[in-house]
Every structure is written in structure tokens, then in C-alpha cells.
């Protein structure tokens, strides 16, 4: 009570792709929307992304990828998160992701995939409505 915990988000760039315009815009936009946002920087392995999520104790992980390696990297991240006891974290993705891959990604634990041109407010609203805030002590 009193102090409300702000939503903590990790924005991550898994894989070798260095195109992070979208990731950086999301970092700023989510901060402007009142969330606490940590950005991993580019070229992170799934292990590094998950380690950062654990260390920062985040509620949301936002993955951005434009290289086409999402089918390999996204499921690996959700699996590692579960293994680290972070299965309740809301994991969302964005980038150049063909529609036909989205169903498989959802089955692998990606809650939602946001394609190019998605309004920022759509993503903010989605996070607010779907995040399960970790219980405060």
C-alpha cells in the first residue's frame, strides 16, 4: 500500500541482429508510460537475456528481432525463463515476424507478437492489462 510498484520491463535484442531502432524507441516510450525499463543492448544470447531478466527481477520481457532467427531464439528464452522460475513473466515480441510463425511462437510461450507499425499505445495497453505484478513482500 502507499508506494505502488512500477512495472519493470526488460527490452532485449537476442541474436546477432544489430537493428535496434525499434527497441530503443520502445524503451523510451515505455519509460514515458511510467514503467521502469532496462535495455540489454544488441547481440545477446538467450542465456544473457534470461540472466538479465532474473537479475533485474522484471515483470515483462520485450524481445525485438529483425533477423529471422525468432523461431530458434524466442522459444529458447521462454524455456530458460521457466527453468529459472520466471514462467510468470509476460514475454512479448516484435520485429519482422511472418504471420505464419506467430501461432507457433504463442505455443512456445510468447504472449503476443507486435509487427511493424503497431502503435506504441497498443503495446502499453497490452502490458498494463496482461502483466501479473510480482507480489510485494
Amino acid at each position: 500500500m502507499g508506494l505502488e510498484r512500477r512495472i519493470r520491463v526488460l527490452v532485449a535484442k537476442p541474436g546477432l541482429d544489430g537493428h535496434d531502432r525499434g527497441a530503443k524507441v520502445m524503451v523510451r516510450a515505455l519509460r514515458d508510460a511510467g514503467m521502469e525499463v532496462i535495455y540489454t543492448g544488441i547481440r545477446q544470447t538467450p542465456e544473457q537475456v534470461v540472466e538479465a531478466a532474473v537479475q533485474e527481477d522484471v515483470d515483462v520481457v520485450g524481445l525485438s528481432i529483425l533477423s529471422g532467427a525468432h523461431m530458434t531464439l524466442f522459444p529458447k528464452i521462454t524455456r530458460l525463463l521457466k527453468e529459472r522460475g520466471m514462467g510468470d513473466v509476460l514475454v512479448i515480441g516484435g520485429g519482422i515476424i511472418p504471420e505464419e510463425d506467430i501461432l507457433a511462437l504463442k505455443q512456445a510461450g510468447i504472449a503476443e507478437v507486435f509487427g511493424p507499425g503497431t502503435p506504441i499505445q497498443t503495446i502499453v495497453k497490452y502490458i498494463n492489462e496482461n502483466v501479473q505484478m510480482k507480489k510485494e513482500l
Partner: protein
Amino acid sequence: MFDKQKLTSIVKEQERWERDTLNKTLARFPERQPEFTTVSGMPIQRLYTPMNVEDLDYAEDLGFPGEFPFTRGVYATVYRGRLWTMRQYAGFGTAEESNQRYKYLLEQGQTGLSVAFDLPTQIGYDSDHSIASGEVGRVGVPVSSLRDMEILFDGIPLDKVSTSMTINSTAPQVLAMYIALAEKQGVPLSKVAGTVQNDILKEYVARGTYIYPPEASMRLAVDIIEYCQKNAPRFNAISVSGYHMREAGATAVQELAFTLANGIAYVEAAMKRGLPIDDFAPRVSFFFACHNDFFEEIAKFRAARRLWAKIMKERFGAKDLSSMLLRYHVQTSGCTLTAQQPYNNIVRVTMQALAAVLGGAQSLHTNSFDEALALPSETAVITALRTQQIIAHESGVTNTVDPLCGSFFVESLTNKIEEEAMEYIQKVDAMGGAMAAIQRGFYQKQIADSAYEYQKDVEGKERIVVGVNEFITEAKVPIKLLKVDPEAERRQVERLRRVRAERDGKKVKEALEKLRKAADGNDNLMPFMLKAVKAYATNGEISDTLREAFGEYKAETIV
């Protein structure tokens, strides 16, 4: 350029026009918005008159094409002599599939090749490295060894086609493979034409395919410049690129300024190596984006030519006119393409390509309409190539040189872009040059700010993006996308293992040891690279050898 008396009367006439005509119109029909700006946020006036360019001196500021300051074009006849090179960036799956695509594009009238390498190749990992898993053949073709290069250019004689290769931190080994292949084909190096991007500075700013710390990377970049100057006179040893910074969010002015500031850094580094300016500067080339704002882009290209010519002449004392030429490739802007209503992208690409041609580009890639969704399908890439051919052969814009010269608006915008870019270059100089400015995060911060401003404008509908924030339709258009064969990675890994098994391991080891030793000294590393790739040492092995010598760079994240 104008008679003073006539200018005075124009000012008077304009005042009268505002009173008698304009104000009446404005009273009845207010303008759509309080301020009009370019896509980069540069304010645009309602009307341009001779007053906007009253100080313009034709001989000094514009001159004649093929002569200083090259505002009107780098060659005397521009497209009347020879059309630009139509060069579609392509590569995916494996060397076999990419080779097929190149042959198809050449059959369809493409006039040069442009190789897209996959990310592991660009960052110095072999296709079977664990970090490469899922990335092999995704955004380009995997080239782990000379064997892949041989297959990639199978049936394509290297003396008949010029090849541009988008490769930076691993440019030395990839260029060495290309040279080794030319030798195998029996083509003398003096006849091999093309370009290696070899622009590592911008990788620290955008795109991110760096490996080593900046100083070591600069050494490799200059090794290539020096090697090409001495051995491959028809090869552009560097393509200083603004494209990726623009795509990351830079404005037109920032793109131009940061590109030329990086160009200055490479010229200085090569001069420091002891290369005489007029020996290497003619082989320095450039690469820019062409975004949506038609006149801003045309003005940018004209300003770029003039500014670079002045820098080369005045700052570096170049004497040879060809050292002053800003020759450049253009790619239409990927970030303007929309996943929504993808066929609209054909129109965007057409307008951008037209601006690139009116701006005087030497080489052009037109994006495919499906690129916000996947790598280009064959249908999409042919439409993109046909767009260039239609502009070249049907539109008539190639009939005369620099057709927009003398437009009060275009000349005024050209001046303004040059001025503002120069201010940025001076700022970069004051920070100690491009590398220092990048290490301080100056470019990165400026670009991230511009990107966020742009996004906020789109969100607030201050900028309309057709099909995205206005004129939205729910109906989906059926579109057949290219799918990279998931088996490609496995086939590539198999081939790589075969190469490793079949080659002379002792020769590889020796070549890598020599390279390692040379890396500790000051010798040009290119001859050592050549020895290594000819022994079928892999890209990853060579990169690891240099990682050991130079260390790896860890970038600070700047949001």
C-alpha cells in the same frame, strides 16, 4: 546570379502579392497546418523566389557537371552517357540459392551484383558456431570459406560484373576470398571491379556488426584501402555509409554530416599511414539512403557532392579532380516501408528511386515491396528492378543533367542542408573527430532522439503514414513471401565440415600463426589473409585469430 535592381523590384512585388492576393486567400482558406516541414523537420516556406538564392554564384556554387564543385554531377554527361548501375542487394539460404538469384537478376537486366551476407559471416562466426544457430542464411548468404565463395559466383565471370559486398568487420577475409576466386577464374586483379563496404565506424553507431575495438578496426580498414590502391585499381576500397544511420533514425542532415565526418576520419587514417591523398581518395565511395521527402533528398545529394569536393580540396589539399568526386550508391529507405497494405510500398519505392536519380546517383538498389514482412520474393525483387528500368527508359528524367538545378526551392534547400551538415561536422571536429564522437555516444544519442521524435509525430498523427495511422483497411491482401529453407543451415554446416576435413590442416595452421604474428606488428594484414583463405582457413578461424590479437569490443548502450 541576379540583377540587384530586379531583386529589389521582386521584393516589392512580393509585398504587394502578400497584401493583395495571399492575405485574401488566407482569410478565406487558412493553410492546413501552421508550419510545413520536411520529413527531417526542416521548415519549408510557402514560396521560394530569387531572394532565397540571391547570393548564389553560378560558377562558384554550381559550376558544370564533372567539374568542381560537382554540385551538378560527378561526370560531364551523367545519365546521357551511361545509366546508373542497377544493383539489387541479395543473398539468402546458401551459396547455391544465392547464386541462382544473382544469375536470375543478371538475366533480367540487372547491371551489377550486391552481396548480402548473413549475420554470422558479418560478425566472424562460422556457420556451425553455437551463436550462429538460427541465423545462418537468414538475412544473407553464409560464407564461411573460399568454397562458399566459389559456389556463390559459379558461372559468373568476375571480369564481366562489378560486385558490391556489404561487409565490414570481416571485410579483409571476405575480400581476400573474392580476390582468391578471381585468381582461380584467371581474372587479373587489375580487371576486378566492385566495392567492399569496409566502413566500420558506422557499425558502432547503427547496425552493430563490429568485432574489435575501434583502433584495431580502423587499422584493418586502412589495410584494405592500401591494398586496393596498390593491387586492385578498379575496386572501391570503402563505401562510407550513411544508409544505416538514416535507417536508425537520423535526419537527412545528420545522415550527411555523420557520413562525411566518418569519411574525413578514414582519409585522415589513410594519410597517417603515409598514403598520398590523390593515390587513394579516388577509390573512396559513399552510400546513402533515399527517404520519402522528395526535394529534401535531391537537395541532400547535391549538397553532399559540393561539400565533399570542398573538404577534399580545401581541407586535405587534393589536387586530382577524381579525389574530389563523391560517387555514391543509393538504397531506397527500408524503414519507410509498411507491413500494412504492402503494395503501397511500390509507390513509395518509385518516388524514392526517382529522387535518387534526380539527385544523380551512380548506383541504385530499389527495395522490394514485401520487405517489411520478409526477405524479398522473386516477384517483389523483379518489380523493384523494373521500377528502375521504367525510370531509366520511360520517364525521360535521364535526358538532361541535374534537371532541378536553378529551382529557387531546390537551390535554397541544397544550401541549407550543406550549411547545417557543416555545423555538425565542426561539432564532431571539436570533439576530436568521428571516432571520439562515436565513443562519446554523440551520433548515437542524436540519432535516437530523432527516431523518437519521428515516432511521436506518427503516434500523434502529425505525420500521416498511409495504411498505418490513416487510411487503414482491415482487409488482408494475399501475398506470397520468400521462406528461407530451414534445411539450408544444415546443408551449409555439412559443407563447412567437409571443407575442414578435406583441406591441408598444417597449411591452415601455419597461415593462421603467421597472421597472428603479423597482427602484433604493423604490416598490412591483407597478404596474410590471402594466404589463409587460399588454404581454406575459415572466416571464423581468421576472426578468432584477430580476436585473440585485438580483443573484442563491448559497446555501451545508448538509448
